[in-house]
């Protein structure tokens, strides 16, 4: 549980620390299945984090490998003192490597061997999921008003601040902020509704089978 800084408490799912401890303990004992579980659990989240921080898919992909390798190697050597803090440990490694990357002095990970059967980081299922999500996002974007699309484009792709967008579009900054939030909410709702309905379709198909 953590505080979001606005007086609201952010609730974490129960049992999370127990899961972390189990995975950490198993990896330190050389359990290859636990290594798979570790990668499956952290890889998508690390990818999201690295992509958000670097804004570069190639760099994020390289760093993702480095973080996973460094974390697994450290876990194998039993370097995690509090197994229930596995997530914090992984985050710490990710931030260290990001800092090194940004200082243009990226450290090479230890030359320890990787398990041969480490899950494919670019697994086909994950890619398919990404493509489906992106395709739903594309339809959602197409449903927006042009101004809202432009604001989102300028925000998320061009990295412009509301003040600058406001100047370019000759709108008030407050209006840009409002439209940006409204467009984001609408688009997320659209993507979610679509993914829920597609999930339901999958379930119905399975039941029929």
């Amino acid at each position, binding site marked *: 549980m*953590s505080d*979001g*800084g*606005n007086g*609201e408490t*952010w*609730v*974490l*799912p*129960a049992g*999370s620390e127990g899961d972390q401890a189990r995975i950490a303990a198993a990896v330190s004992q050389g359990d290859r299945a636990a290594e798979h579980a570790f990668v499956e659990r952290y890889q*998508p*989240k690390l990818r*999201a*984090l690295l*992509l*958000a921080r670097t*804004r570069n898919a190639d760099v994020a992909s390289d760093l993702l490998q480095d973080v996973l390798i460094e974390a697994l190697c450290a876990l194998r050597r039993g370097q995690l003192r509090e197994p229930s803090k596995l*997530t*914090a440990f992984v*985050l710490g490694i990710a*931030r260290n490597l990001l800092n090194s990357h940004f200082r243009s002095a990226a450290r090479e990970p230890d030359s320890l061997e990787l398990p041969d059967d480490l899950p494919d980081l670019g697994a086909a299922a994950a890619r398919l999921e*990404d493509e489906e*999500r*992106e395709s*739903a*996002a*594309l339809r*959602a*974007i*197409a449903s927006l008003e*042009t*101004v809202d*699309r*432009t604001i*989102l*484009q*300028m*925000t*998320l*792709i061009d*990295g*412009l*601040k509301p*003040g*600058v967008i*406001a*100047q*370019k*579009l*000759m709108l*008030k*900054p407050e209006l840009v902020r409002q439209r*940006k*939030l409204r467009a*984001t909410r609408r*688009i*997320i709702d659209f*993507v*979610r509704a679509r993914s829920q309905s597609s999930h339901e379709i999958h379930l119905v198909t399975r039941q029929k089978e």
Partner: protein
Amino acid sequence: MKSCTGTPAELCALPYLEGVLPEHQVELFEAHFFECPICFAYLQDLQAISAALARHPEIPGIKEEKPARRRLLPFPARTWALGAAAAMVLAVAVISFRALHPGQQQAPIALTAPAAPLPAKPTGPTRATSAAPLRPSQLADLALPPFVAPNLRGAQEDTRFESGMNDYENGDCRGAVAELSSVPARSEDARAARFYCAACEMRLGNLTEAAADMGKVATDGDAPQQESALYYEAQIALAADRPATAHRYLMRTIALEGDLEQKARDEDRRVQEMLNESPGESREKPESIAR
């Protein structure tokens, strides 16, 4: 224990992706979405939207409506209208010239001479008006940029900024520098003050100070003056006969795709011609102007 309903992601995911979330909140949010599937899904959706926007900029209405460049007339009317206007201006100029100088033979026109009138410059060289080889400094446009009042104002305008800009608009560069350089760094006008102060220093011929201040404005992130600061850094480099440095700044100006893009492109073409003609120019000796 009740489960998360996605509020953290709704509050933080967009600013997180924009890179504007404070660092301590970034760390909290990352720690949260690593364990919260609802917030993580929200973040993934938002990243998918970013990816879709990045990979498909051709979605109708996105690129063509980006109003960074304001057009005088819509295409195709623009092309012929501008062409016709240019032809008329040329015809009037030729007729007037012949009327004023009936017996005089027409002098050869220097292709490198600028068509537009030159801005007045108290110091430094002017642009070329003959066919002699141009020096980079002759390309430098050191005219004061027009004051664009910010429309992002939330609080009261700083009185020193206001007074400095009055001096600026009256062409009193020394007065403007004195006022603008006293605007406190925490003021919301600080960045604009630094930019216009740099413009005045540039106009006064204090190129090193001007370059330093323009550089700070240009590297200070998104700001209405960022593009102009890069453009004027290029002009300062040209004034210091540093075409290779100017080329770099012009490229950065062009990359911003703003109002100065075309102007920078035109100038960069001429700078590159210069660099090609005398490659030695590209090996500039280090000095304080170039950062």
